[in-house]
């Protein structure tokens, strides 16, 4: 299946290679570089590139290309999904997945890759199992290791691989037993010129941080499970009970994991928490354009809209912008023509406003297109879809765990056309 893996940074250096079968020369990456050159932007490199003897399947994350070399037929998504899983694992281990982090931990990276694939076929990809095999580096452990010469490799043999619940390591012990769940929802929306919604959908996830002793068996029930008609689960969730009773029943992995992700697409369920009043005009023949933008909250159930950030790609003809924000600060990059305005919190009494003029290149014709406005924001303590967790119960263990649930709404790809 997967023959080799090459990691390539933004400047085109191969900084790590790993082979699971016979060695494939790194010159195979030349085909990738060719494709990279042809592509105008880094994300436009095709994920699958055929070469005379191999196929290259790549993903781009954190400005690193993970290029897998394939020799024969394999579902491309299989490889892509696996590569993403590799990136997630690195992130999990090192906190960030950057070239520097990978280079600093090259031995751990190599040990991980060795465990994750055997002869090119995925072997252990579950974070809990990997952590039993190879302990993640921490500052403390690195120090202890340098002094005592001990290792990152787990001394005990991993038993998780053998158990009925392969995602949970055995012998988990905590003095404080806690289970936290974060319901995070992102709104994706396209709002048209007149302010009506073209599309709006919610992409939600429930991320969990479970630190419970032993083999707890949890059930999580919702006040309004009907909202969740399009869901995907972590392998620990029992399908059958979900289908029968709309209850999530599972033995959780130890530590952080994504319990489920869901999708609310029906438009009448999606509330739009902010509105934008805009007036962006360019006049034919004039070298100036007007820019006026006001943000305001709506349908937020009384919660504050925070960390608001507005960005917009202005037309190429714009030389600079001379704007005046009523709050926050704005920047305009004359090279990329990107306008960003860090608004902060929206005060419903005094709506934030950005107003001023844009200077156009002299003699250039009026841009055909008004810029699209992207908005980012956060709303704490609210799930915009109205999803609410009813209760969390634990079976199988005797202690009383500490439970917590947090809600948050964020903007995903929230665009306003002007």
């Amino acid at each position, binding site marked *: 299946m997967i023959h080799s893996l090459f990691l390539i940074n933004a400047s085109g250096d*191969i900084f790590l290679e790993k082979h699971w079968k016979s060695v494939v020369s790194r010159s195979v990456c030349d085909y990738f570089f060719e494709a990279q050159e042809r592509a105008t932007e880094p994300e436009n490199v095709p994920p699958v590139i055929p070469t005379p003897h191999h196929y290259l399947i790549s993903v781009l994350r954190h400005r690193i290309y993970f290029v897998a070399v394939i020799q024969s037929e394999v*579902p491309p998504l299989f490889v892509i999904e696996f590569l993403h899983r590799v990136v997630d694992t690195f992130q999990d281990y090192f906190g960030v997945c950057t070239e520097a982090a990978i280079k600093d931990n090259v031995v751990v990276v*190599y040990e991980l890759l060795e465990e994750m694939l055997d002869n090119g076929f995925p072997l252990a990809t579950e974070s809990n199992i990997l952590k039993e095999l190879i302990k993640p580096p921490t500052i403390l452990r690195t120090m202890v290791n340098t002094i005592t010469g001990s*290792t990152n490799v787990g001394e005990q043999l991993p038993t998780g691989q053998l158990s009925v619940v392969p995602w949970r390591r055995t012998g988990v012990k905590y003095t404080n037993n806690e289970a936290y769940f974060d319901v995070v929802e992102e709104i994706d929306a396209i709002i048209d010129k007149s302010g009506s919604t073209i599309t709006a959908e919610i992409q939600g996830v429930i991320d969990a941080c479970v630190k419970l002793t032993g083999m707890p068996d949890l059930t999580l029930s919702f006040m309004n499970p009907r909202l969740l008609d399009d869901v995907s689960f972590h392998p620990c969730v029992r399908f059958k009970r979900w289908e029968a009773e709309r209850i999530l029943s599972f033995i959780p992995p130890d530590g952080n994991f994504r319990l489920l992700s869901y999708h609310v697409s029906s*438009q009448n369920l999606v509330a739009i928490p902010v509105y934008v009043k805009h007036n962006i005009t360019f006049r034919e023949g004039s070298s100036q354009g007007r820019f006026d933008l006001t943000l305001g909250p709506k349908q937020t159930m009384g919660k504050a809209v925070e960390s608001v950030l507005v960005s917009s790609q202005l037309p190429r003809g714009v030389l600079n912008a001379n704007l005046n924000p009523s709050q926050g600060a704005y920047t305009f990059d004359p090279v990329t023509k990107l306008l960003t305005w860090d608004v902060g919190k929206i005060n419903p009494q005094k709506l934030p406003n950005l107003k001023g003029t844009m200077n156009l290149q002299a003699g250039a014709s009026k841009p055909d*297109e008004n810029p699209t406005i992207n908005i980012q924001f956060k709303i704490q303590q609210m799930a915009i879809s109205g999803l609410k967790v009813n209760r969390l119960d634990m079976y199988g263990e005797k202690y009383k765990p500490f439970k917590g649930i947090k809600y948050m709404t964020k903007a995903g790809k929230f665009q306003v056309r002007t």
Partner: protein
Amino acid sequence: CSSSSCVFREVSEEQRCDIVASSTVNSFWMFSSCRHDDLKEMLDSNKDSLKLEAMKRIVAMIARGKNASDLFPAVVKNVACKNIEVKKLVYVYLVRYAEEQQDLALLSISTFQRGLKDPNQLIRASALRVLSSIRVTIIVPIMMLAIKEAASDMSPYVRKTAAHAIPKLYSLDPEQKDQLIEVIEKLLADKTTLVAGSVVMAFEEVCPERIDLIHKNYRKLCNLLIDVEEWGQVVIINMLTRYARTQFLNPNLNDGGSGDKTFYGSDEDEDDDEKENKEKAEAAALAKRKPYVMDPDHRLLLRNTKPLLQSRNAAVVMAVAQLYFHLAPKAEVGVIAKALVRLLRSHSEVQFVVLQNVATMTIRRRGMFEPYLKSFYIRSTDPTLIKILKGNGVLGVTIWCLLLSWQTYIKSMDKDFVAATIQAIGRCATNIGEVRDTCLNGLVQLLSNRDELVVAESVVVIKKLLQMQPEKHSDIIKHMAKLTDNIQVPMARASILWLIGEYCEHVPKIAPDVLRKMAKSFTYEEDIVKLQILNLAAKLYLTNSKQTKLLTQYVLNLAKYDQNYDIRDRARFIRQLIVPTEKSGALSKYAKKLFLALKPAPVLESPFKDRDHFQLGSLSHLLNAKAGGYQELPDWPEAAPDPSVRNVEVKESVRAVGTVTYRDTGALCALQASQKVDGAQVAPAPDASDSEQSRSSSESEESDEGSESEEEKENKNKKKVVKKAVKESERCRISLLPTITPSGTLKSYELLHRITGEGLSVEYCFGRQPFSPDANMVAVQLQFTNNSTSETKNLHMKDVKLQSGMRVKEFPEIELLPAGDTASAVMGIDFCDSTQAANLQLTSTRKFFVSIQPPVGELMRPVFLTENEFKREQGQLMGMNELTEKLILDAKYRNEHAIVQRVTTAAHLSRVPCGSDNECRFAGRTVTSGSLVLVTVATGEEGVAQLTVNCEKMVIGTMLVKDILLALTQ
């Protein structure tokens, strides 16, 4: 092989150094050793920390792609190092360089051979993993032997590793294929989820054509699927798709293909052979006139894969989607759309692949994605690659949405995408008559767009559209003629000129004027434009020679001296053809026919059109070219092959090891959580089936029947009660199979009679599954039935009067048991290896005193021993610890199978492999203290048999002898 392995073992430490010194690689090594002297020194030192440091540096070198092969001798010496991390890094090094330094690599083999015999399964597995990864041809026989041995290892994890090793060996030496197929066949029969994915992967790599190996395992694979790890699921689903295509009938045959119209309208653009196939199939269907009934196995596959559409793994979702697309009846395919649309929210690479597949699907099944159109809307932040594909998706889906939003798309700053959009609009317009005018109007509006590229692209598309019905659109042609003044893009200019030339009769006044203008600018034009000017001139000359004769002459003269020989050539050719001279031959008479022949309108096809003969989701489909190792998706057979090949015969329950499946077949803990009877958890019930649809319930029961083993059938009566409950609570569409082969019949005992319990009756049985919260406890499954007319509340247990040392893990309180309902729970009891009853108090509104007395056979759990281990252990348990009893077996039960079954029913033991035919051996350990229990039944002539029990605990031994004796003679 054994002799060769001996050789390797004999290489001692001292000899290794000699070999190093004399090896041929050495000259190179001597030379470059100066560079890595420090590393070598560190590796030779006694300190593990130095070795580790050196290995880390070496691995970092390998990672960077630097050559570290000269360190091979120094590294390989450390293969037996005690430090685990050093060892692991040495393995990494070894696997990387063994191929280059085969002789030296052999030195390490003996270490792995020792590892293969280790009592710890994980060490056995990792030894096999590294051994099989060393690509050295000499050790092929050793590898073969190791794989064969590991394939019958008791640990499923080692068996999994064996399955992984198969393709490695196969790629090293394809000659071994036949032997490897034998191993694969054996592993395919494995009942654990751990092995299933890996062995199917090996099957796909080694012998995908041996579809016959799948028959017997088909149902099992379907049932295990949900609990197999994600990557295995993908491989299994893809394989089963192919399998199903060879074994079942096309479920869509009876619709006569009428609903199966391709997206691009008329049937004409359908592939000819496809059509032929369809006709053939239709004919066949007509001939039979038999209503289609789906094979229950076909249904089983569809039903068991469906929940996986909710997997978090995109590859699994895609695999199920393609399975449904290729196998499901048309009415059911719709379910995959939602899941695929969900994937569009994932990483852009995933989107890329999914959109490609969606594009193919929409060609075949037009309406499938209509409800999800909005998800295909394009965002300004999408990468171009995705935009283009989304465009294809949307436009493939339907035209209506396009008319809503295309204006916005075209304004996009991303030019590649705009071009793709316009082309897609053109495709829609050609293929869907109703919207052609709307599209054309839109495109004409685009002609006044300020962006030249947009205009050019539109012109090209309009040209193609106009060709279909030119007479209606002379005003558009006029409009385009005007554009020649402004438009600079050569392709567009060329298209306009061609249009004017072709339809010069519709624009008789304008055409000569255009030619006049063009003649003026001829020398500055691009080559393709020049060629079209020549064409235009020739056509005009033929239709309207009075006005254009001179112009044509002029253009031809200019062309005569052009730099491009193609143009000179064309000019000469045209002159000869159209200008009549005395020398010109017969051809010039036909000039008009040649130039102004009616040209067929072009067919605008989606670039995804011809891809659908590849299996969706495959690499070959994505690239539209057959990749190496691609297995063709076979056509449906015209008549279904014999379905009985999938029936499974009775199997001996020799192996009691197995994993309990989790997600739907349920684990013990699941049972505790769910107060209701939940599927196969109570007993590994085989026939919990679809109760939602009574129609299919009988069908699936029947399908499961075959895979039940004999004991389970015997179980049936016992499980009647359970089954009823299952029927009630079971809402899921998954049918279940046992993954544990129970080593005997589960016998249930009464705990509380319904009269004493005032309507509440309780039964218990020993589930023989490990009790996960506490390994020292025996799992007791309780089944509560409320026979009274009122509900029972807060049912829980209190321990009273326990013998010293006994412990109980209560089941979680059952809050409510409605009248007539049934619930079950599991509790754990540590009986301290005694058969004393555990006295308990069951409390709800009233208190009941109950006691659970375990048969001695339930106080143990099976262990797996090899024959040698068994003999060794037996040797240590002689004298007082050995009990022997003679007995005479009933004539009917003299065969080995009956003995095995009866002993494993009486006691929870597992069988030990045995060389001799007339001996059966069993082994187990007591649950609390872990003392060994060994049982031997030796049969002699005429049913005389001798039963021997060796056990440290004499009481247990004595009681066990009694019980087994009873079981065997009854």
